[in-house]
């Protein structure tokens, strides 16, 4: 493993922040070394300074992508924390459907965004909840978007194939049999669910007004990797991307106190969601 020098820590940490928004503690040299050493070696670099130079000169952005993939945490599972999905099924979706069903002849339009979708488990869980609740989804105009900074995660999410370790974490047997097909040693999401969702690459540090407005935004366990300043910017932008009566769900151990005064927390049973003031 290539050792990182103190002056390189600063350069690489700044570079990672610039391309991903992710803040890495410069006191944790091992974090940089364990995640980046093999990329440096694969690109015949003998130092991280050299890797940085190569990454910046590389027009194909291949090295940058590899670095973002290595640095970003893809920890996710189906129905992570359970609470938010019960909240979605029993409180939020019925209210959104109610609010959007005003006009006769028009399909109620519901837009949901999983802002850090990783390898797709969160958005597929949302789609499964929708399918379970609505039955015939054709009666609605649904748009389910998943975005993530990692190209590899987006590719895997779009493919919708999971190995047995990924499947065993969080997914109920009844959903597995209903919405997945066994494919060799892995499980693939069925087309009826796959067709409900879209994935694309997005860096949350960049502007995203182009995505339009959403009724429900899941932005869970991603801001924890950002500085307080970047977190403030992110949630202000999310407020602008949320309909006035929309719903925001953040990670179960995250807080918006001192981060974004535009949102107020509301409790439903054992979960919390946020709405604009």
């Amino acid at each position, binding site marked *: 493993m290539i050792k990182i020098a103190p002056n390189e820590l600063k350069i690489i940490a700044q570079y990672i922040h610039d391309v991903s928004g992710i803040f890495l503690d410069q006191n944790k040299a091992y974090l940089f070394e364990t995640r980046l050493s093999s990329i440096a070696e694969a690109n015949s670099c003998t130092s991280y300074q050299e890797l940085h130079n190569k990454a910046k000169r590389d027009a194909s952005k291949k090295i940058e992508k590899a670095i973002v993939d290595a640095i970003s945490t893809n920890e996710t599972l189906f129905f992570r924390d359970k609470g938010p999905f019960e909240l979605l099924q029993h409180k939020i979706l019925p209210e959104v459907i109610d609010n959007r069903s005003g006009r006769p002849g028009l399909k109620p339009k519901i837009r949901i965004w999983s802002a850090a979708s990783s390898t797709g488990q969160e958005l597929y869980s949302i789609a499964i909840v929708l399918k379970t609740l609505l039955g015939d989804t054709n009666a609605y105009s649904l748009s389910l978007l998943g975005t993530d900074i990692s190209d590899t995660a987006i590719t895997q999410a779009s493919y919708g194939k999971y190995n047995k370790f990924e499947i065993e974490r969080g997914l109920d047997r009844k959903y597995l049999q209903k919405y997945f097909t066994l494919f060799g040693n892995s499980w693939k999401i069925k087309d009826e669910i796959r067709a409900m969702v879209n994935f694309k690459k997005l860096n949350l540090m960049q502007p995203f007004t182009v995505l339009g407005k959403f009724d429900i935004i899941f932005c869970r366990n991603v801001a924890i990797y950002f500085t307080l300043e970047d977190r403030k910017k992110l949630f202000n932008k999310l407020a602008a991307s949320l309909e006035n009566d929309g719903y925001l769900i953040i990670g179960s151990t995250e807080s918006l106190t001192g981060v974004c005064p535009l949102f107020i*927390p509301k409790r439903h049973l054992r979960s919390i969601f946020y709405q604009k003031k």
Partner: protein
Amino acid sequence: MKILSILVVDDDPVIRRLLEHRLKTEHYAVQVAEDGYAAENLLRTQFFDVVLTDLMMPGDIGGIEVLEIAKEINDKTEVILITAHSSVDTAVKAMQKGANDYLEKPLNFDELFLRLDKIANIQTILKNAQDLEHAMTTTESAASATIQSLEIQVANLRDSLDTVENILRNDELVDGDRVADALNVIAES
């Protein structure tokens, strides 16, 4: 590192005894079965980390069948097949059916011990990952209960402060009433 429990299945008594002896010397927990039927009986009564089975055995239960039975009973059991050089194709097919690995005859014990070490390592890592996941879930649910309740409390206090501010700024009330009303709101918060 974990001590693996191993079931040796071979119809040749010499190889069976040799394997048993060598594995026990290396401190593995070993049991033996002289054919597929005996192996099935043992697999149904206790869990083995690894089944080391000969591919070709007399009777209806050969190595492939032992593999299938072991995986069906518990897919966490790893199966290593012992094959003659001529049956490598069959061994590859067995790997597609979930076998962990195969070893060719004559057996190289160093190679066998390396494979077993690898399995023990992976099982240790998997166990660590599961322990970490359990610890994370426990920490997370405790932390989220605290954080969410604080989040609501802060929002309620903010609300009370706004009400107090409105009361204090209300020119239509005399000073004494304003203070009394404000104190009431504070007392209730």
